[in-house]
């Protein structure tokens, strides 16, 4: 068989197996503890409609404490009621704050902190400001993945260029590019999934032969005496990125799902495709977790200050950013948008339903000893609190107990705790450690008070 056809075939022809059969390697023998816990973070921008001085509570339940499907359904005017089906696996955490001010742009400042709990850069500033340390998905991947295996970093929606991806940081000021096109993400992870094992072995040998030569070339460049720090970091990252092919895992989506991604490819950034793209990305995330491809994933919905024009009742609305400011302008002045808070609430619900799609996908992977959802934790978070784009009461909605580590089925108000504590606790639930070997209790900027968020631990 000609290799070109073969490589082409990788992505065109998928295994014609029923959906749940296609990740068979783990399914057969999975038992409690066999699936290492994972974390998935979905970001919504622009805050949510929660109680402020002049707007009513439309996000959280009225009472903290235990959550049941009935109690949540009874408050159907709250955005989280969209998730009532998952009440027993839900963990609603109110009272989380960002510890540091932004730097000239609330959106980038919030985006930079929501998964890092780090300060915001002074250079660059404004909409180009960056986080001063790594994000939790990076920490999880760095500590728990096999060497060189990245956190999955996905994106749905347009890249408008004002602020694009904000979530995943490799290190201070080094942001990880997010993949906006599902087919690219899929190919990168599962492109070889339907190769014959013998062919795969040969391909692995070919790659090893090239990789050995390239590693030698890289080492020679890295051994130069006069390397600046930026160049050394650049070459180190490149060198660590070179991986040999591991033969054995076969994971794939259905032929139809992959074909739909191919069709979507040219228009993956289009405004009107955001929700479809988000769902495709979630299919990939769920498959990646089912197959143990990585332990951490992020998906960003919309650009930095989400300018997507969402559809509500079939009507294309003004940009979410404008709606979130309640005025017809991206700046600070402009004519009011009538009923903007209700539109914002509907957009909160759109996000809730996208998140629920992810939960449904994870729950559908039955591992015998439980559904995939129970082994990990999925987080719906925001990079701002409310319509004032505040850094307090930034909503974090967790689903799944990370194999029993987290105490689900409850709504807690932790009353003003920095988000590093929550992120660290999620890291600890997955197995991340602090420098002393204890559970991760010092994630984020070193100035932040250390400790776990005990309220959410089982």
């Amino acid at each position, binding site marked *: 068989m*000609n*290799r*070109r056809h073969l*490589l082409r075939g990788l992505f065109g022809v998928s295994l014609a197996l029923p959906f749940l059969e296609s990740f068979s390697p783990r399914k057969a023998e999975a038992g409690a503890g066999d699936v290492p816990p994972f974390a998935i973070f979905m970001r919504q921008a622009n805050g949510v409609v929660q109680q402020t001085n002049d707007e009513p509570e439309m996000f959280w339940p009225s009472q903290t404490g235990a959550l049941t499907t009935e109690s949540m359904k009874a408050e159907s005017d709250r955005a989280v009621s969209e998730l009532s089906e998952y009440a027993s696996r839900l963990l609603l955490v109110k009272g989380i704050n960002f510890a540091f001010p932004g*730097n*000239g*742009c*609330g959106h980038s400042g919030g985006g930079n902190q929501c998964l890092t709990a780090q300060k915001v850069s002074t*250079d*660059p*500033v*404004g*909409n*180009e400001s960056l986080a001063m340390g790594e994000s939790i998905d990076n920490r999880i991947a760095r500590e728990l993945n096999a060497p060189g295996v*990245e956190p999955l970093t996905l994106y749905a929606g347009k890249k408008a*260029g004002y602020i694009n991806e904000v979530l995943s940081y490799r290190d201070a*000021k*080094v*942001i*990880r*590019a997010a*993949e906006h*096109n599902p*087919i*690219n993400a899929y190919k*990168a992870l599962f*492109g070889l999934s339907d190769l014959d094992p013998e062919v795969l072995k*040969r391909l692995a040998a*070919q790659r090893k*032969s*090239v990789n050995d*030569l*390239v590693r*030698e*070339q*890289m080492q020679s*460049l890295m051994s*130069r*005496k*006069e*390397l*600046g*720090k*930026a*160049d050394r970091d*650049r*070459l180190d*990252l*490149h060198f*660590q*990125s070179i*991986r040999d092919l591991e033969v054995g895992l076969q994971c794939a989506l259905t032929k139809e799902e992959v074909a739909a991604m191919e069709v979507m490819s040219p228009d993956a950034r289009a405004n009107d495709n955001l929700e479809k793209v988000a769902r495709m990305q979630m299919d990939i995330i769920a498959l990646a977790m089912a197959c143990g491809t990585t332990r951490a994933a992020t998906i960003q919905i919309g650009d930095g200050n989400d300018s997507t*024009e969402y559809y509500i009742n079939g009507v294309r609305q003004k940009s979410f950013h404008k709606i979130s400011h309640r005025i*017809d302008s*991206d*700046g*600070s*002045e*402009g*004519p009011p948008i009538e009923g903007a808070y209700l539109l914002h609430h509907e957009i909160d619900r759109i996000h809730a339903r996208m998140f629920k799609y992810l939960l449904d996908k994870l729950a559908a992977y039955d591992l015998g000893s439980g559904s995939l959802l129970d082994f990990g934790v999925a987080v719906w978070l925001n990079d701002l609190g409310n319509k004032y784009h505040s850094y307090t009461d930034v909503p974090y909605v967790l689903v799944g107990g990370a194999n029993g580590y987290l105490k689900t089925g409850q709504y807690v108000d932790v009353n003003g705790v920095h988000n590093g504590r929550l992120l660290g606790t999620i890291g600890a639930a997955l197995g991340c450690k602090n420098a002393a070997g204890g559970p991760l209790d010092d994630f984020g900027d070193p100035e932040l008070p250390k400790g776990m968020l005990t309220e959410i631990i089982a």
Partner: protein
Amino acid sequence: MEILSAPSSVMRRIPTLLRAGALVLACLSPACVGTIGGSSEDQAAVQSIPERSAFPRLTHAQWENSVRDVLRLDAPPGFSASFTGDPLGGVFDNNEAVLSVTPNLWADYQRAAEELASLVVSDPAKVDALVPADEGQGNEARARAFIEAVGKRAYRRPLTAPEINQLVALFNEAPSLIDGDPFLAGVEHVLSALFQSPHFIYRVEGTRTPRPDGLIPLGPYERAARLSYLLWNTMPDDVLFEAAAAGELDTQEGLRTHAERMLADPQARDVVLAFHRQLFDFRKFEDLYKDPAVFPEFVPEIGKDLVREAELFVEDVVFEQEGGLTALLTSRTAFVNDRLAGIYEVDAPNGAEFGKVELDAEKRSGILTRAGFLAANGTARASDPIHRGVFVNLRVLCARLPPPPNNVPPLPPVEGKTTREIVASHTGKGTCGASCHGTLINPAGFAFENYDAIGRYRAEDNGFPVDAADAYPLGGGMASFSDALTWSQLLAESREANECFAKNWLEFAYGRDAEVEDAKFIAKLGEASRTGMSVKELLLELVSSDAFSTRRPVEVAQ
């Protein structure tokens, strides 16, 4: 990534002038200044240029073009469309600081290299273009000749003997790894390795002895690569390789001569367009929403028209008029089709195709009075003086706008009848926004109040006469203008806009941020631009400088 252990006075970056820019009220007192910082003292040669990467990675467009030229293909393969994107690194997509090989991109490179290799060996014509014919010299000799010729293009320099031997070994190993014809297996395997090599992925610059003044001259092949990636966005052609081998690029005059030859080639047009496309954000033109009830003529196809119009205009200014910033800001030559003709109140000379017209001298000037810029910086229904003003401040004047506050205070009630009056009542003189909005942002945007949300000319706004007059601090004083025409003219004559244009070209041409060390050179280029230097001449100045043809020794990482 920060550079360590350099004296802070030298390595301090020019505060990134193009970066500020959130659009909210600024209740800040710091002076808003529109100048480029820098030292006026004479510096030693070694301090006249900043340290930079010796491993700038190819942009995805450069990867495409380079693959095409290495393999002698008719067109770029298009594989990079599925590559992992790069994070934003300022205005331009070629800033070396953000171009890294991440695990995802490495996997993209690997897959593309394998596909390219198998693409070549599956097509005898493509193989023949790379491998010498079998004339009885033996396969070993053919393999060596193939490796030396194609390897030279891939690494953009002749291969060393050990490098050739390594690749020959790889060639010979191939039949045990790849089925089919053993010779083709070798070709495929070597091609795959070449495209995964750091010597292809990066424009690797070597190290050598400094000159007496402390600067390290680049080698001839490194100069050839810098030249070709700057002017053609691809690897050197055979002529440049020969010039490098013959020492023709060793002098600044030699570089200039070759740059002149390359500027006359159509490939240079793409590069010049890419600069303006990014600086003036043409991409934004394609995705505009205007209220169809107010602007029924703003049909979806018009987005692409606006981009094409802007491209044709830039090409005309740079290559037909041989102009510079002044022509860009003041030329009234335009290219319209029937959809755009209405906006400009002219007849479309070629109907649905684009045709050249001269616009009304009373109503239009250069690029800032064209529909693309005006519509992209307009809302769904109204003009948008703040966005227009911020754009001019950041992209045309490189003004430093301090970051606005994080929390916007409650707004005063709306007062006024025109867009200008409303904006001024919130942000103008006498309000908390006076320091930046009142003095810098609003005037630079009010100048365009004669143009509505889609760039049509108007004498009235909301039934009241338009007031587009204002004043802006230029050249140490306040420069008054009456409308966008006089404002464009003032900009074209200003030191600030010309230095900004030079700074942007320097960043684009060198693929890095402008640094403190560049300030003197930028000032010199700015003055030349102000007194009429063309874009082409500006490019020639950029390639015949020390910053182009030498390196500063690096501060070694600890």
